[in-house]
């Protein structure tokens, strides 16, 4: 199972990186969203999958899944959400100000 999930994370990374290399700011934002999904999946996978019950203590259960990666991912989800929404508004502002969100046109001039 872990190998399959690693491959899935790899695919998410590939798609995210490909989007990062596009010209349009919106696509780049999509790319970052995909990258963070990939990273979260990867963290979970590295903590080993399907070992025991969900980490909520109950009488009589001995085996639980690793709670630490879950806590890490939870933090990460919130942070990447903050960054993604910030980027999105940034893209919106950039478009409003410059009338384009094509990165090739947003290079700036040589002497500034």
């Amino acid at each position, binding site marked *: 199972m872990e190998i399959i999930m*690693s491959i899935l994370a790899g695919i*998410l990374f590939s*798609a995210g990186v490909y989007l990062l290399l596009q010209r349009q700011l919106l696509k780049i934002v999509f790319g970052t969203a995909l990258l963070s999904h990939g990273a979260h999946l990867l963290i979970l996978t590295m*903590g080993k999958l399907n070992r025991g019950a969900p980490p909520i*203590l109950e009488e009589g259960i001995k085996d639980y899944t690793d709670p*630490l990666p879950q806590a890490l991912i939870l933090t990460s989800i919130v942070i990447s959400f903050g960054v993604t929404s910030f980027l999105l*508004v940034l893209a*919106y*502002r950039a478009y409003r100000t410059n009338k384009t969100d094509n990165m090739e046109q947003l290079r700036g001039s040589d002497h500034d």
Partner: protein
Amino acid sequence: MQYAVLAPFLTALVVPFLFRYIRAIHTGWLILPIPFGIFTYFLSQLTNISEGHNQHSMVQWVPSLGMNFSFYLDGLSLLFSLLISGIGTLVVLYSIFYLDKNEKLHNFYVFLYIFMGAMLGVVLSDNIYALYLFWELTSISSFLLIGYWYERQASRYGALKSMIITVLGGLSMLGGLILLSIITGTTSIREMIAASDTVLESPYFTGILVLILLGAFTKSAQFPFHIWLPDAMEAPTPVSAFLHSATMVKAGIYLTARLFLLFGGTDIFFVLVTGFGLLTLCWGSYMAVRQTDLKAILAFSTISQLGMIMTMLGFGTKEAAFAAVFHIFNHATFKGSLFMVAGIVDHETGTRDIRRLGGLMTLMPISATLAFFGAFSMAGVPLPIFNGFLSKEMFFKTSLDLETTSTLAASIAPFVPALAVFGSIFTFVYSMYFFFHTFTGKTRGELKVKPHEAPIGMLISPIVLVLFVIIVGLLPNMINEPILTPATAAIYGELPDKHIVFWHGFFEPALYMSMIVVALGVILFLTRTKWQSVYNWIPGVLSANKTYDYLYNMQFRVSEKTTRTYMTGSIRHYMLYILIFIIGATGVTLFVTDGFVIDTSDLAPISWPEVAVGLVMAIAAIATILMKNRIAAILVLGIVGYGLSLLFVFFRAPDLALTQLIVETVTVALFLLCFYHLPKLDTKKQPVGAKTLNIIVSVSVGVLVTLVAIASHSSKKFETIAHYFIEESHHLGGGNNVVNVILVDMRGLDTLFEITVLGLAALGIYAMIRLRDKEEME
């Protein structure tokens, strides 16, 4: 002794105040006693030193790194200190009459006194770091002095050029000195000389020698680094006389002489020092004849004379060391006076162009007399009143004696006297040219001012120097015992048994060489106009100046071109650099270190619902790329997020699933909210090449992530600490939801800052939307 070095620096500190508050008196008068005081101090040391009592004093600086202001006074440094302070006094005196009270005197004297202190520091320092510090201070103050009239373009060009070349050499010298101190384990020059054997056996010997000589050659204007000196003539004439003839350009000579005991006598030292010295001697004197500016003639003459001194140091014999010391002294006297005369001519006629000068003998008889002694001494005319002749005769003699020395020197010995004579012939020609063209014949061209004799104050300094020329010429042994002998002893390590005699005897070959020089020199001087065109052939395109300018401009072009090539301004290119580096570095490391392992023993069993969800997510992720419609792209992206939260459910992470679900919903809502204001998706196709590269890079990143994930999963080295959280969650945290206990209790700090991030993002978004809108409305 340290106060002698410190005094000029302190003077430089108070000069601006003197200039500001005492306007009635020329600032130069107020500070003239300083160099004179230093001069008398060093004079008082003469007997001590000639009796062999060398002085030593030390001020601690950074003792833990072996950096100290450690000063050492022996014959060699005494000779230089006397030259620096003595000529310094004369130059300050001369400058009082040369520079008007309305000039920027505060700048001038500050720079000059910094230079004087630095130069004294160079010749007195025994510690290599102190030596280097003072060495660079001379470069900097020389830069400031050359650029004194900074509103002139030529001054700035000359200053920059001298700075670049001398600092380049200075840095390489620092490298050599550091290597030396690593090998010998000391930072003191005397201790290095004592450990000479270690250095000679070291495999770095050649490297050290080349690095240090590079410093010496650039400072002392040896071929091909001589090009900065003629351009440094843009400095005020007192500066040219002081720095660029008598003192700073001899710093390289001093360094070579100082380290003679360390390097001298080896074949490579002989080849480098003598070889470049001879080249410089011949090239400098040859080029000097071509110049039309008085100071340019003197600049090339200085180059040539420095080459001659270098050559003698390279010979490596005791007689040659003595002759070198003698010529250092003589050159400082006659060249200093010649520069001052050139300055007087410039001052009193308004031009330094030799083509417009002439017939000044009757108008300026004193200057003419001074120039006569200076120029004839420089030419080495065989009369007992010119000190230049004595040292030049010694030069010829030592060059003839080379045959009897070490093997390599002996094998090329026959060529050396021939080249020496060649250089001397041209020396004779330009000296005659300098004197006769300026002071005899008729005036050529109209002069701006009616020439007249200079004020007496301006004449004092060159008169004093010329008196030295004559006295030393007549009674050379007067300075032999107190100055020259201890200096030679400091260079060569043993006392010379030398009594200077005028004319070595009628049957000495050296005398015939002098005769040849005079005879051929006279012929060449008289037929000068006929062979002048030879300068169109050589240097022609070989000029070192053109090479310098070419290199100087090329480095700008090349660096600009390089920068333009990779700094394209395109974020895609920068992304590519980063990603390709990651792929390369990680991939290579993974396989070079055999990091990739697969261990299937510890895997969870495959369950099909999860695989199905994963498949859907993969398809959706790829579909996000291919979508041409905004809403479709957003929704497909949403599928990936919801799929992930489903996976979280399957993998027993309820909190994650919950959060992911909410966040994904909010994100999708945000995207949908925004999309109306955002442009349509760019459907224009990228060029095939760029697209292929994108695919290759992104697939490689994905593959690499997968491989790293599998490899790290397969090589788990330590047990997880999960059991601690699970065991202690209820006991310490008082909660049953372990994930939540970790978040708020065990690792609460993470959560605090995650909240901060969210708050900052919200503030940022608010600021971006509100504040810009206001701006637009206004």
